[in-house]
């Protein structure tokens, strides 16, 4: 297992549980680096002063917050860090909630928590109690100079920490325009669609789904390496749903036969 990226304590009530934070996720996207198409040489990003049109060494770069057009308040690293709070290595659990009540929209990143130094006993106790109650401890912690709202819960015998989004960061649906049709879907269409949903209903097993695009990109790379010309395949454009009922019926037929 990778090294821990943070050490601290989960505090709830008068209890404290020494923990270590580990990354739980990693992107498996095929990664590229920027190259110059003419000669394949690596692209470098260089910093230039907009006024002087001269390259600026990193040491001379400062951070500014724009308070008005072209008017900045400059803050140094320590001043920005001053906003992070007291920097205590603590996850303060304010209270506990039912995990199932937290809407998926709030979940941001996930980390694993392992028992820290002298923490084996309290860790196991918290883990077992969270497992038994199905609850998550909601609290805050400071990581990399900023404060996060977090939920700590038990998952497959391990404590996980989710960072959560704040309510004011969530866009309410009312801000997204969705024109209504002149006539809503009819009863037959709804019934047919429900049957389609039932037919295609399955238990979610994440391992049933692989990143196919990753494989497709690697295939393009292999062809390009052999010097092949890459041309996109022709695909017929899908029809829009002018005849909803006919499309539903045909889909249901297809789904029953086991295809899509």
């Amino acid at each position, binding site marked *: 297992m990778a090294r821990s990226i943070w050490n601290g304590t989960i505090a709830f009530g008068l209890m404290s549980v020494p923990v270590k934070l580990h990354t739980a996720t990693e992107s498996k996207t095929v990664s590229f680096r920027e190259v110059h198409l003419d000669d394949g040489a690596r692209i470098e990003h260089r910093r230039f002063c907009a006024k002087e049109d001269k390259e600026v060494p990193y040491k001379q770069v400062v951070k500014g917050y724009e308070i008005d057009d072209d008017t900045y308040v400059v803050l140094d690293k320590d001043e920005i860090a001053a906003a992070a709070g007291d920097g205590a290595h603590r996850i303060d659990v304010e209270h506990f909630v039912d995990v199932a009540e937290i809407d998926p929209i709030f979940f941001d990143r996930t980390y694993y928590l392992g028992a820290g130094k002298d923490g084996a006993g309290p860790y196991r106790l918290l883990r077992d109690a969270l497992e038994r109650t199905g609850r998550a401890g909601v609290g805050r912690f400071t990581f990399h100079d900023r404060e996060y709202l977090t939920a700590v819960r038990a998952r497959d015998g391990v404590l996980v920490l989710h960072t959560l989004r704040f309510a004011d960061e969530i866009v309410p649906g009312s801000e997204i325009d969705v024109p209504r049709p*002149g006539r809503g879907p009819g009863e037959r269409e709804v019934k047919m669609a429900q049957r389609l949903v039932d037919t295609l209903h399955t238990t979610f097993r994440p391992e049933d789904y692989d990143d196919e695009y990753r494989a497709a990109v690697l295939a393009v790379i292999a062809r390009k390496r052999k010097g092949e010309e890459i041309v996109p395949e022709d695909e017929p454009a899908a029809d829009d749903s002018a005849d909803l009922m006919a499309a539903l019926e045909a889909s249901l037929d297809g789904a029953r036969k086991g295809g899509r």
Partner: protein
Amino acid sequence: MARSLWTGAISFGLVNVPVALYSAVRDLDIHFRQLHGKDGAPIETRRFCSEEDKEVPFEAVGHGYEEEGEDLVVLTDEDLAAAAPRKTRTIDIEAFVDVADVDPLFFDHPYYLAPVGEAEGNLRAYRLLVKVLASTDRAALGRFVLRSKEYLVLVRVRDDRLALTTMLFHDEVRPAKGINTGGRKPAKAQLDAATKLIEALSVDWDPGHYRDCYRERLLDVIERKRKGRKITAPSPGRDAGGPPPDIMDALKASLERVRAGEGFDRGADGGDADGDDRDGDRGGLEDLTRDELYERAQKADVAGRSSMSRKELIAALSE
């Protein structure tokens, strides 16, 4: 309405609905701009060819793929677009699943889908999908490619609209192997006491209860700096240190406090970015209880006072 991030179609069976994708998260983070310290002018980033030492226009930048022991392969945008064209334009629904079955660990970024255009058939198909998903607790599971990355996505209903959440693939979640999962099974009395404490500290999930104090403190630091005031870091807070010497005693004492309605002020919660607790410019606010502070906040019409802690009320009232 914000600009859409992607347009394409959502397709289930033979029903195909043109849709646009909008982020369901607004960026409220405080962003800083890189400036040249000497003259305060903004920094521009320019792309240079490392070989020729010449600036390179964006159109002349390609995607280089390197593998150990192999030559560099360079792909253009067009090459990449040829990889899986349908996936970049269509969210293909493959199955319907129960939202509760999906572990939150897989969730990545939330979006909304809105129908594109005014065509009656499309609007009705969109409405049909909303209606059917809303009447069950099910979500559609599909896949599509956004910005050169494929995502497993969950499409469900939120606020009477289709809400899409990108998810990680199973192999993007690391196994928890090797993580120290603690000691021996706790004694029943301990587990019972811990369960009681958790129940006693349990509330309904109310996202509006939590404000981003970091953002507020950072804006406060910026404001102070603008006024030419000195910014000092707050005194380091007390780390909670190791585990309690006796778990059972700590659990019992915690429960008693919760039952007596007492809180667990750890002395450093929130932390004051300005570090001027001791400046004496707080007019004796430090000596007041939260209720007394709240009364003053009511008179001063402090916004958001009902959700503020005692410390936050003091901070707000000393502005």
